[in-house]
């Protein structure tokens, strides 16, 4: 495995305005072409961690780097300078995040959803943006829906479009938040297959947050176990599922 670090977080601390600590010193590195699964109980901070990695959250301490470059995460009590804003925007455009609730743009067509990032995030020409959008939709098998309204699509189709929208930016790393949680068993299998396919494509670096341990076992090279905002364990997949650690055993038993 190539040991070059694509995305890393160091000592991330984040509290909600109500004082609750959600991330309590998280340090993590994602290597090139690596697929990492993040698992943990409900509410342990998985989604928040992905948001931090994608550059969407302000933090109290710590830093996130993409290929060694700091992402200029906003500090909670200071306003970002223009320069910092620009660095942060570039970071966001190069990290693809697929939300747990998709957050597709309901007023736009499928194609327009996927063109947003290339056109206004990367600043590409419309024709180039359209080409990227088509290519991304092709990868998730939704290229025929280019001109349809996203509100007409089923949940599974919406998840595919959400993934394509993130892929259209050709991100260095793709962050997937519970890609199968909102779907019925049939759709879960289909999306699971898609995630496996994306993972097997040699160039994809991916972080998958999931409750689906089978999926984690299939796609992940490494598993990160998060508990109450802290990284409790970080093990190669085989070792994680065979671990004798009491906390891990208990988590695996209940999941």
């Amino acid at each position, binding site marked *: 495995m190539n040991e070059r670090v694509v995305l890393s977080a160091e000592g991330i601390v984040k509290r909600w305005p109500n004082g609750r600590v959600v991330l309590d010193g998280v340090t993590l590195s994602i290597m090139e072409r690596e697929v990492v699964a993040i698992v943990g109980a409900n509410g342990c901070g998985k989604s928040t961690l992905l948001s931090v990695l994608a550059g969407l959250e302000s933090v109290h301490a710590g830093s996130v780097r993409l290929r060694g470059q700091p992402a200029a995460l906003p500090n909670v009590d200071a306003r970002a300078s223009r320069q910092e804003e620009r660095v942060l925007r570039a970071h966001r455009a190069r990290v693809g995040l697929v939300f747990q609730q998709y957050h597709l743009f*309901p007023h736009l067509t499928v194609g327009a959803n996927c063109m947003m990032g290339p056109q206004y*995030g990367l600043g590409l020409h419309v024709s180039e943006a*359209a080409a990227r959008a088509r290519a991304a939709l092709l990868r998730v098998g939704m290229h025929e829906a280019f001109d349809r309204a996203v509100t007409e699509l089923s949940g599974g189709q919406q998840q595919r479009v959400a993934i394509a929208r*993130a892929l259209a930016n050709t991100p260095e790393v793709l962050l997937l938040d519970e890609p199968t949680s909102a779907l019925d068993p049939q759709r879960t299998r289909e999306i699971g297959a898609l995630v496996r396919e994306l993972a097997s494509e040699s160039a994809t670096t991916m972080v998958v947050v999931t409750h689906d341990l089978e999926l984690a076992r299939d796609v992940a090279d490494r598993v990160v176990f998060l508990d109450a905002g802290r990284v409790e364990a970080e093990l190669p997949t085989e070792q994680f599922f065979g671990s004798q650690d009491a906390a891990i055993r208990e988590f695996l038993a209940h999941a």
Partner: protein
Amino acid sequence: MVCSAIAAAQSTLDDIRTRGVLRYAIDPSGGAPFAMPTVEEPDVLTGFEVELMQLIGAELGVRVEPITGDWLALVDLLKSERADLAINGFEVTEERALEVDFSAPYYVYDQQPTIRSSDRARFPDFASTRGNSSGTSVFVPVATLNGAASVDVLLEFGWPRERIQEYDDGLLPYTELKAKRVDLVVQDSIVAAYYAGSDAELLNLAPLGKQGHYAALFRKGDNTLREAFDQALARLKASGELAALYRRWKIWTQDQASIGIVDRAEIVGNTETTANADGAAASRAFSWPAVFWALAKACVNTIVLTVVAMPLAVALGVVLAIAMRSQFRRIAWPARVYVAVVRGTPLLVQLYLVYYSLPALGLWLAGHVPSLDAIVNIQSALTWPAFLVAIVVLAGNYGAYEAEVQRAGLDAVPGGQRRAALALGLSHRASLWRIELPQGFRTVLPATINDLNSMIKDSSLVSLIAVPELMQVALGIGKATLMVPAVLVAAAAYYLVLSLAADVFARRLARARGLRDSTGRFAHLERATR
């Protein structure tokens, strides 16, 4: 620049001669026989004062142009130099003399009491409306024109204020009399002759012998213009032309001789019998096709006003909504204050202030900041045409309402939308314009359509300033033809049609779906959720 300084030093009369146009302030909705829109061509006025001004213009060798506005605002039109003089049944009073200069009188009126014909036995004369034969005071409820000399006369005769009902136009008091809301109307004889004289239900009692004069109004100290006007008027009085004009409008009385009007009816020929020359009769001629056509033409102004002002209002509303949501107080507060003030004050007052105060502000600035006046003639720069003022004020007023609407729209967009846009690398601005606003706009489209509808109707308020729109023309024609209710119903039908058309248009807009076209552009409105 230099020439503007010279022009300022010149008298109004010189300005008028240079321009070739004398502008007079007059209210066409105030009613016959003074001034009113013609049914055939609502922009063209008729009435005895309109014709008098044409004669004056001919004497002075200039064209005359009516500047129309609400009667109570005519003095402001004069003061703000939007008009050179005002002429519209202004009685010569001491209070007015403090504000303006009067021309020589051009008409002598008396105060004319009017009762219902059926009350003939109850009120044989004016005295019986004040007290009965046994000496007890009665003081029947009386209606009259707002701000007219008749109010002072009634007070003089002992009427308590609360028994005097004042109306904004000369016709309404008679309508109220017929509806038995009042038992007496006291108004200038000329108004009484026109409205009550031809109505069998109404009876004019003997005039009260409280003669007064009508005169034109000039800005204080504008003497050269006033004197030129007076000389022209004197020639018309002496030649018999003025008397002929008054006979044609059926307002000639023997009293007129007291201000030097020479009657040469015998010499000129009996004009009264010539049907064509009967201005009063002509203005009362009524035909539905002509009225509908006149209203349709007036509709154009209403439509243009709305079509231009509403998009501006929405644009302003969006900008204000964004500003109000800003985390910077220096941006949010001015926007909030603007919205609060504009929503909290009547549109009518805003129109009035902008229209009449801007030129005054220009005059003040020109006097106090001469360096600015050297660059541009401030006063004329600030003397916006009425139509522009109407659009700006309507847009500014509705912009405040739209600000709240659009803010609600933005608030309704789920936070995840913004996060998703930012996650793709969009700037805050791109997220706002490409993602949040289009969705917010779609959510509040029904409220915006509502605003569009009320603007169509509120545009009638701009007749306060000189914009002849549907309502002003309808009232003017209605009063001239003594058919106010019928013409108002016709106008209402037009408003209804306009409002329904606006609904249909807006619904189409809502259905339009944002598909990319061949060039790759895409609209951001998508098929309404079914």
